[in-house]
């Protein structure tokens, strides 16, 4: 009916008066906050990496030698083998975990299988333990004096088999969580449409379910690959003579005191981690528009045959998980494996062993609390600035970029970079070296990115107009922060604190280079006791970490529920 009306071409009258909005006190405060945090993170992430890089280009006396160290490295066959070993172990673990975790996640999210909550809880157990626990447990099951040694048909658990098995165990929950998220966000309308077109079940799976979870699957692959290739606890304990990049770094630095070569190997280790990080970022960006706001949530229906088959599968996996944990727990109480199987608390008498004693355990708790308190505060404040500071998009983008970097840096690499950076005689921050402070800082930085993203997600759920409304009501920014933003984001903040606590309890990678005799940690004590042949006390200490983490998780759950009841009443309609 209507006729297209051509619009006369616009001739712009350029008006001279340019507009420059004056900054309010709040704007200044936020800008100063942004700059401070950027400086802070740059000093703790970028500068250490720079000193790592420059170390790799120096000889023992600190002279610049260009790529000579790299040349030497690639001339050493023993070291080169580690690259292949690392890549293949990471690849096979990723493949196995992807398949198992996908089926497990599918059973949890898309079926009416009984005991789903129980299965979910069991699969998350490894998060409470350091990666070493799995390796120690495997030694008791399949090691030289293992209960089920014969099941390996003469193959040795000390080597790639053990590394892959233990890695599968400890990365499983990480894979599972991503896949559960990917599979929970399904649009029921797609399934209804497919069924209305009389599509067979397997075809719906291939054409709707899998494509819907595609990005989650890819992301899981990258995450698992990176976790395994950068983990050093498992290969250290159960790798035997099977060398990987992560253990090479440790051996070069701690064993041979060859810092330059250590720097070279950690840079080699950085490559696959950065590659996986970039690939993962790329995948995440594609995922954004997948689920529209109008999607109808998918409600699984019960299908007895499928549900019971998956129940069987999940039971087996859960049984293995409990067996892993159970064996370590049992062994920790056995007086002298395998000759004296009477139960005692001898192995928990840490003060009688090398490895730091009970002090290490208390140090760990102290460090975990510091990380949880200071880390979550700092990270939440940072993400608030990234999300809410007005104008100055470029500064916010810089902070966000710096905040994303730690995810690409393996803990081991971060730790070694910190040695070079903080140990440098000219560094005014050198006083931190060997203190509790550097352990806390390195741990917060190491786990910065995931926490940052969690806070960011919570902040993004707030209406962006809250700040606008506050401005129009002449309310200072800090008041809205305290009265609205913080209370609404409190659950996310607690999650971050809990995440930092658990990781601080279990981490080995960065801190293994940074602890001093006074700041020995429980997770490192596990490593050292195992190294000294005290496997049972190592298991006992690992179990102490598990118990502590579990209790903390419980407290976190209770506190969350209490706070929810007190401050989040508004969530209930």
């Amino acid at each position, binding site marked *: 009916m209507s*006729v297209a009306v051509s*619009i006369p071409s616009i001739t712009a009258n350029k008006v001279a*008066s340019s507009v420059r909005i004056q900054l309010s006190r709040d704007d200044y405060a936020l800008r100063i906050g942004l700059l401070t945090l950027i400086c802070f993170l740059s000093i703790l992430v970028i500068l250490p990496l720079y000193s790592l890089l420059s170390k790799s280009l120096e000889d023992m006396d600190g002279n610049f030698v260009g790529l000579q160290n790299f040349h030497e490295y690639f001339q050493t066959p023993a070291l080169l083998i580690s690259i292949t070993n690392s890549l293949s172990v990471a690849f096979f673990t990723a493949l196995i975990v992807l398949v198992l975790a996908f089926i497990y996640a599918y059973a949890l999210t898309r079926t009416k299988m009984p005991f789903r909550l129980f299965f979910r809880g069991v699969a998350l157990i490894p998060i409470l333990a350091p990666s070493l626990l799995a390796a120690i447990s495997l030694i008791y099951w399949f090691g030289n004096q293992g209960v089920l040694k014969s099941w390996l048909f003469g193959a040795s658990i000390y080597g790639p088999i053990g590394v892959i098995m233990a890695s599968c165990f400890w990365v499983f929950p990480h894979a599972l969580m991503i896949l559960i998220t990917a599979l929970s966000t399904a649009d029921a309308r797609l399934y209804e449409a497919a069924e209305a077109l009389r599509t067979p079940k397997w075809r719906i799976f291939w054409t709707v379910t899998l494509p819907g979870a595609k990005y989650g699957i890819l992301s899981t692959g990258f995450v698992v690959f990176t976790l395994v290739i950068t983990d050093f606890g498992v290969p250290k304990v159960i790798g035997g003579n099977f060398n990987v990049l992560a253990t090479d770094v440790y051996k070069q630095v701690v064993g041979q005191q060859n810092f330059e070569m250590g720097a070279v190997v950690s840079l080699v280790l950085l490559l696959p981690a950065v590659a996986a990080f970039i690939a993962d970022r790329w995948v995440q960006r594609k995922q954004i528009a997948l689920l529209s706001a109008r999607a109808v949530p998918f409600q699984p229906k019960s299908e007895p045959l499928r549900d019971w088959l998956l129940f069987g599968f999940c039971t087996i996996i859960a049984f293995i998980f409990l067996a892993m944990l159970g064996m370590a727990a049992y062994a920790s109480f056995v007086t002298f494996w395998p000759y004296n199987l009477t139960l005692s608390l001898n192995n928990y008498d840490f003060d009688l062993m090398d490895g730091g004693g009970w002090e290490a355990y208390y140090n760990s708790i102290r460090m975990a609390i510091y990380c949880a308190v200071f880390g979550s505060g700092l990270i939440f404040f940072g993400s608030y600035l990234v999300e809410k500071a007005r104008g100055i998009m470029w500064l916010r983008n810089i902070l966000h970029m710096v905040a994303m970097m730690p995810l690409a840096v393996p803990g081991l690499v971060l730790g070694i970079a910190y040695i070079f950076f903080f140990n440098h005689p000219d560094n005014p921050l050198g006083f931190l070296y060997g203190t509790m402070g550097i352990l806390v800082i390195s741990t917060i930085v190491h786990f910065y990115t995931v926490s940052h993203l969690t806070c960011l997600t919570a902040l993004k759920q707030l209406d962006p107009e809250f700040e*606008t409304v506050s401005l129009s*009501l002449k309310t*200072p920014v800090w008041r809205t922060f305290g009265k609205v933003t913080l209370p609404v984001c409190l659950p996310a903040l607690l999650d971050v604190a809990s995440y930092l606590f658990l990781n601080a309890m279990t981490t080995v990678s960065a801190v293994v280079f940074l602890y001093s005799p006074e700041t020995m940690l429980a997770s490192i004590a596990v490593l050292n006791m195992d190294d000294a042949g005290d496997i049972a006390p190592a298991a006992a200490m690992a179990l102490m970490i598990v118990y502590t983490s579990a209790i903390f998780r419980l407290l976190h759950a209770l506190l969350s529920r209490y706070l929810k009841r007190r401050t989040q009443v508004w969530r209930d309609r």
Partner: protein
Amino acid sequence: MPESKQNFLRIENLTKHFGEFVAVQDLSLEINDSEFICFLGPSGCGKTTLLRAIAGLDPQSSGRIIQAGKDISNLPPAERDFGIVFQSYALFPNLTVFQNVAYGLENQKIPKMEIREQVNDLLELVGMPEQTGKYPAQLSGGQQQRVALARALATSPGLLLLDEPLSALDARVRATLRHEIRSLHERLGVTTILVTHDQEEALSMADRIVVMNEGRIEQVGTPEEIYSTPASPFVADFIGVMNFLQGEVTTSGKVLIGENTLDCKTANISVGSKVQITVRPEDILCSVDSKKTANSFPVKVESLEFLGSFCRLILSGQDGFGKLITDLSTQQVHELNVSPETTLTAVFPELNLRVFQENS
């Protein structure tokens, strides 16, 4: 009080770029004190950009804004004088209705008793006196928007900005709130700017409407002016239903459409120019009388659509007329005994035809 009733808010040569994209193009506008103004236009026409520039949220690239005699172009939002209501309500979810409304008052060192009184008055004003203890999630959309309105009015701003406040509500609530916002405005007399893409909303609420398209003003006028004397084909098409006829001026006062000539005011459009003629559906007079009078042409009924109190007819005319829409009352349809394929005579009264020169 502003120094003059005439222009409480003056916008001078305002331009806003987003990179290469020009969202608002050299726009000037004056808004009177206590006036209810609507910015109306399709999405992407720059109406929200203009509103956000007035609030200082997305400052303009160039141009000046003068409010109550004071140049506010460079002021941050917190130092400007406005209250704002959004389509998303933007109520603080963890605060009760009372706390939301009191939010802006609590900064002003007002005694608690007085705040309580003011908040209760405001909630009464927006028709929500009973719900002070509830949280936003416990309210319906319409109720939330009332609270948002009370919150915006709490600090007695000189200017009330409403950014598509009714678009998220369902039709019935929208109609009620439309009426209530209008009567609230009449009681309080606060200068109000409403941004909307809904012409019905603009026509029913505004003192004056600013019709915008592609970052420029197409027309400013009262609802009646905008509807009955659109200044451009865009306005004619955007507001209400409109028929367009393509033609060419043959002599002054005559336009050739296909093979027929239509009498209409061509003003000073030169002979030979291509023109568009617009006519509202209700302005086409239909009869069964086949006598030829001025501007009368035979048309055939293609289809008719029953719309309650009236029927909408799709007519096909002779060459050049194409398809036409006209509305007849249900009674007329019976009297004329209209059904598809019926032939009628359509009269296009000269007074109701508007002629626009087509841009080459």
